[in-house]
């Protein structure tokens, strides 16, 4: 027997957990303003997250999936996107929406069970996808459309470690390889799928290596290092524009419960999550920014205040919104509602009227 192929899985970390640059060579080209913007977006994401959990506890929104701990993976990757690139998120990617310019009120609205919050104009982020992994083929298809249209644009599919068990993931990756799709696959390996640790999800040591089977590059990055995430995504996008897909595994950690309906203490010792606090993506980035004199403590405070205001305004404006007309539960089924369904539309209107 002889070895006919050997493979490697690269790992990228630029900023370690103490806030020190460990790989100067890989440092992405970002201005001071941009670095500050990244920090602001991470703080915004966390503030939005904390507010959402609070609103859920108070019954003002319904089930919510926290992004706590995944700010770097979401903000760093979304910030690397160009205007024409499109993201296909799962249900946890609030940081991706915010980075792309979605307003907090839209995200709150969605979690209040209002369809109008699911999509936002001009942000180029598709609706959240709750059936795990089902959005990954869409990212491949969108990347195939860009290839067909010879457009300098790419699609990025977001998903968790759990979704890599689904056929959708493997089918999407295989299509992307075969059709040279303009696609980036971004896995946030937060090490849990509800209660199942990633080690029981797959026997593979990394998620990144799964790309090798489909003929393209897989890379693992420190998912709590925003600079590494940004750099890896930027590089992958550049490749994607030329028809070379990449799988990026952001190794991170789900700091909170799976969702507000979950109680993680049932399957994970609280001390275990506590241990991960020292890898907090915000802390290390802030340390770096302060040490490098890009940010002052005073500016940091100002960002906190600004973000607080933004989130509070978001709450105010989503709670001030009137419900949509009841008949809209059926009105958007088709471009034109078939005559056959008009009696149902009328009944819905009538019942809504009566229950006022």
């Amino acid at each position: 027997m002889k070895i006919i192929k050997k493979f490697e899985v690269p790992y990228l970390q630029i900023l370690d957990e103490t806030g020190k640059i460990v790989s100067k060579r890989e440092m992405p080209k970002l201005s001071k303003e941009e670095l500050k913007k990244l920090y602001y977006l991470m703080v915004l994401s966390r503030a939005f997250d904390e507010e959402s959990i609070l609103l859920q506890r108070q019954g003002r929104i319904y089930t919510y999936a926290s992004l706590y701990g995944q700010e770097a993976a979401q903000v760093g990757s979304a910030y690397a996107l160009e205007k024409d690139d499109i993201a296909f998120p799962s249900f946890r990617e609030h940081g991706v929406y915010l980075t792309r310019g979605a307003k907090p009120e839209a995200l709150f609205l969605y979690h209040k069970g209002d369809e109008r919050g699911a999509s936002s104009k001009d942000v180029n982020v598709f609706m959240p996808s709750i059936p795990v992994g089902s959005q990954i083929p869409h990212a491949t298809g969108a990347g195939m459309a860009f290839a067909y249209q010879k457009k300098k644009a790419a699609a990025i599919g977001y998903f968790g470690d759990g979704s890599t068990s689904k056929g959708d993931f493997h089918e999407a990756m295989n299509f992307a390889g075969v059709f040279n799709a303009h696609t980036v696959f971004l896995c946030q390996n937060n090490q849990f799928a509800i209660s199942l640790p990633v080690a029981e999800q797959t026997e593979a040591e990394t998620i990144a290596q799964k790309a090798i089977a489909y003929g393209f590059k897989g890379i693992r990055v420190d998912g709590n290092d925003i600079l590494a995430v940004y750099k890896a995504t930027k590089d992958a996008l550049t490749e994607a524009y030329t028809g070379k897909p990449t799988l990026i595994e952001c190794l991170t950690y789900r700091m909170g419960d799976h969702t507000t309906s979950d109680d993680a203490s049932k399957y994970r010792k609280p001390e275990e999550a506590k241990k991960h606090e020292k890898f907090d993506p915000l802390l290390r980035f802030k340390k770096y920014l302060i040490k490098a004199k890009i940010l002052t403590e005073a500016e940091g405070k100002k960002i906190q205040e600004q973000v607080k205001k933004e989130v509070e305004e978001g709450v105010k404006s989503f709670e001030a919104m009137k419900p949509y007309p009841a008949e809209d539960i059926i009105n958007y089924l088709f471009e034109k509602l078939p005559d056959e369904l008009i009696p149902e539309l009328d009944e819905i209107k009538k019942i809504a009227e009566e229950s006022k």
Partner: protein
Amino acid sequence: MNMVDAINNALDNEMANDKSIVLLGEDIGEDGGVFRVTDGLAKKYGNNRVMDSPLAEAGIMGVSIGMAVMGLKPVPEIQFDGFSITILDQVYNHASRIRNRSRGLYHCPITLRCPIGGGIRALEHHSESPETFFAHIPGIKVVIPSGPYEAKGLLISSIRDPDPVIFYEPKRIYRAIKEDVPEKPYTIPLGKANIVREGKSLTLITYGSWLRESLEAVEELKTDIEVIDLRTISPLDTGTIISSVKKTGRAVIVHEAPKNLGIAAEIMARINEGAFYSLEAPIERVTGYDTIMPLASYEQLYLLNKEKIKKAITKVLSVKG
């Protein structure tokens, strides 16, 4: 016991008696399932009998088939109704026809459990009623219990059944109804409807979570109405339906799934075939609308309620025979 306890107890009873029974599904082990239906079973029976599966519904159903044809009795769980659709390929193209294709050499004793329906303000895809898809497949039994006592007896029968059963558990009543449920195993036959309340003026046919509101509606109207809980929606118990409608001459059918091609349509067709000349009024159905289940803010508008049921009953009763 509530329905969660009753189902847990049924699984426990059967697992204690039959080592070939294995459970698999997402988060059913240490976490005890997202609705806690399998709570404690992993501890009691071990991780090789209560398996936390990777996140892959089609895989869960596919490997269950492999285990079943080699002598195990898998009781897989799909976490939510919306995700039970991805198993259709394995159910339609394999589970349903293994006995037929092998002329009886192989068979497929699987009981697939899955929560169903709306009413808990859940996320998108978590409030669906897809029972009709499965009921349409020849070779598949579809069971939907209406409360704790029913759930236990029907689940034990499903597990003991030598053929594949889809067992949908109405999540709205997981904890809403408490009943006396014997700790010991007992069975309720599949394919046999239950006359919950006898009456002469009208037959109300329903299943699952809406039995409760249907009974309340009937009580409030103070008329002599017969109420049938189908228990099994495929195969339908046509005999019980027909003899009831022959007696009452009127019928109302209630289910949460959309109207178009729903179970009510099939029941109406069977009444037409078997009791047409006894009918004194057109049959009414109270169903979900033919639209996508709205998100939480409009869920209640989509869902059925006592008033909608009462209105349909009153309408049918008002027709002069």
